[in-house]
């Protein structure tokens, strides 16, 4: 296993950095303040293949490997966590399952516009009574000849506000004793799908997270992704890849925090010298840098396993767990280093602090990740 990035991966990182600094950096503060994504940037990202990162070129994607994908998400998130979230969720848990489990017709109809950013995707799993406990979902899909009728409420749908394609996770065949789950591709403009108001969030404020309600929403059977009852398998397989993406997003936040904290420590003078010369601050920065490096290695290893076609459930869960906790700690310490100034909006660290917390919760809470890891250890 290579421990150093390849030439290609270095160029990719640099290319994304250039774009992020030129086009996204000037608007991150405004996005956080207003909670609105500028659509021109979404369009630009689409043309540059950011919405089809791992999708093969024949469907309009970039065809990148998982490590390169992780690098892209990290670099975007380093500049704007809300965009990083959008890209990670769209790629890992929306476009990717359509590619993996969709038939050719579905790929042509849905995957191609998704890969080009013309339709942003969501993965609707969570409900008011079903967060970590996925099997408690109450959305049902009832077969009626060659359509399904969907009823239910999905909440906290990342990208919901701007999505064109939604993967809805519903239960089918409820008469059976064992619950069966099935995934449906439901277009936003389909009658019976209603989006609720965008949530007012603590952080990741540019991402239009909202509830999606399904009221007698009729969906053609052709929109069913995979077979009836295959939903859980799809979800679990999808989530593993999703963890790599979301871990990279957390890493981007942690790295950004390290960047600004280092800069601040070098230029802020107190007691006649820069903060950097105080042992307490050096300890903070050393810890931060070490943990960021650790998170990156965990992420890249799980991505590497994925690229090799090897099992990586445990590693991906570890990466997500660790990176999210590193992000929270890095931003907390980073804000402390900035002192009073860090508490104001004049510096970006307070935004990173607010953004980081979500990483420990979504895409499987830290508690769920630990469950996954423990179960994996059990069977070893």
């Amino acid at each position, binding site marked *: 296993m290579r421990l150093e990035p390849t030439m290609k991966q270095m160029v990719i990182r640099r290319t994304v950095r250039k774009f992020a600094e030129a086009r996204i950096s000037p608007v991150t*503060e405004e996005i956080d303040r207003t909670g609105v994504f500028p659509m021109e940037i979404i369009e630009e990202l689409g043309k540059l293949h950011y919405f089809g990162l791992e999708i093969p070129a024949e469907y309009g994607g970039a065809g990148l490997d998982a490590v390169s994908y992780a690098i892209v998400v990290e670099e975007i998130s380093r500049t704007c966590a809300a965009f990083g979230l959008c890209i990670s969720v769209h790629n890992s848990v929306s476009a990717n399952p359509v590619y993996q489990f969709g038939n050719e017709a579905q790929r042509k109809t849905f995957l191609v516009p998704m890969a080009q950013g013309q339709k942003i995707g969501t993965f609707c799993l969570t409900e008011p009574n079903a967060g970590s406990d996925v099997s408690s979902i109450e959305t049902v899909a009832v077969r009626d000849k060659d359509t399904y009728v969907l009823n239910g409420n999905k909440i906290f749908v990342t990208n919901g506000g701007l999505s064109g394609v939604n993967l809805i996770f519903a239960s089918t065949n409820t008469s059976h004793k064992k619950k069966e789950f099935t995934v449906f591709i439901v277009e936003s403009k389909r009658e019976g799908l209603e989006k609720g108001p965008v949530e007012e969030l603590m952080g990741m404020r540019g991402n239009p997270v909202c509830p999606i309600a399904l009221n007698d929403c009729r969906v053609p059977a052709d929109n069913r992704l995979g077979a009836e009852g295959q939903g859980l398998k799809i979800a679990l397989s999808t989530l593993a890849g999703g963890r790599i993406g979301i871990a990279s997003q957390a890493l981007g936040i942690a790295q950004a925090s390290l960047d600004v904290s280092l800069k*601040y420590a070098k*230029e802020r003078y107190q007691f*006649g010298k820069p903060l950097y010369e105080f042992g307490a601050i050096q300890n903070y920065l050393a810890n931060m840098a070490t943990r960021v490096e650790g998170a990156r290695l965990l992420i890249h290893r799980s991505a590497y396993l994925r690229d090799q076609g090897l099992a990586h459930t445990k590693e991906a869960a570890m990466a997500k767990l660790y990176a999210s906790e590193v992000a929270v700690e890095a931003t907390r310490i980073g804000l402390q280093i900035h002192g009073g100034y860090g508490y104001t909006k*004049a510096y970006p660290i307070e935004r990173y602090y607010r953004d980081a917390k979500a990483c420990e919760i979504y895409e499987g809470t830290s508690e769920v990740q630990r469950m996954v890891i423990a179960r994996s250890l059990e069977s070893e």
Partner: protein
Amino acid sequence: MKRKERDSSSKDVWIFGDYRNYFQNRVTLQLIAKGRDLARNLGGKVTVLVLGEQVHQYAMEYVAHGADAVMVVDHPNLKDFQVETYTRIVASLVGNYRPDIFLAGATPFGREFFPRVAKRLKTGLSTDCIALEIDPENQLLLQTTPSFGGELLAEVITQNHRPQMATVHPGVFEEQPHDHQAIGRIIYPEVDIARDDRVQLVRSRPEQSKKGHLEDAPVVVVGGRGVSSKEQFQMLSELAELLGGEVGATRPAVLAGLAGEERLLGQTGKKVKPKLLITVGTSGALQYTTGIQGAETIIAINRDAQAPIFKMADLGLVGDARSILTLVLEKLRKRI
């Protein structure tokens, strides 16, 4: 010219006379002064080379500012500074007269013409030198230039090739005062003046300057936390205007309502690379300095001698900004 040529070259220092924008552009005069210093060490003389049409007036000026001789090639074909034509003529003259050192100002013309001459003569050229000295041991010209974007300083020598060529940015050296009693030779060499017509100047007009655009301003005056009132900030605006530039501000100044967000310089604001940046009452926080580090020359005014801004200033003035600027504005208003 190579190896053996070194010994057969004269000990003279030649300066290319770039007389365009004569009153603003003093670089030739500055190089004459430096040239005299170098020639003295070598035991040679300073000659200025002037090409153009109706250029005799400049010859007299150059003598008055210290040239021992001025070589003049005056001809209608030389009216525009045409690179290929000038290259051929200058290279041929240098070939005949063999100066040891040949200097030019790093003006836009100098930058594109001098490398071509150096190539034609197959000799070495260093650009944007910030220092030129004669090494006492080997009599070589030590050419100090920044490289790698200013992160490194290189001391360069041209050991076996002649002439040793270098360009220098205006403002590095100081000219010597005009002396109307100075005496010098004016030489009119024989040279073939055929024009190279592959590049033709079709049209040339003075450029319209863009008003109010911070990133394009040649001069930027910046106010920081130390500028404590709107009235004081107004002084900076006036200074900027008198110098043909724009005013900028740091984050604390913007927060204090002294300037709008569009004037903000730094990490979260604009990045500027003016010819001159005067930064007033700014301590030198990195959030700010990343926006100005590309400036050619930085002058800092601050009351605190320990302020980090002085580490990145070419000239630092420790004192009360208001008093200093009041006096500066008084003088400038009379002149401009």
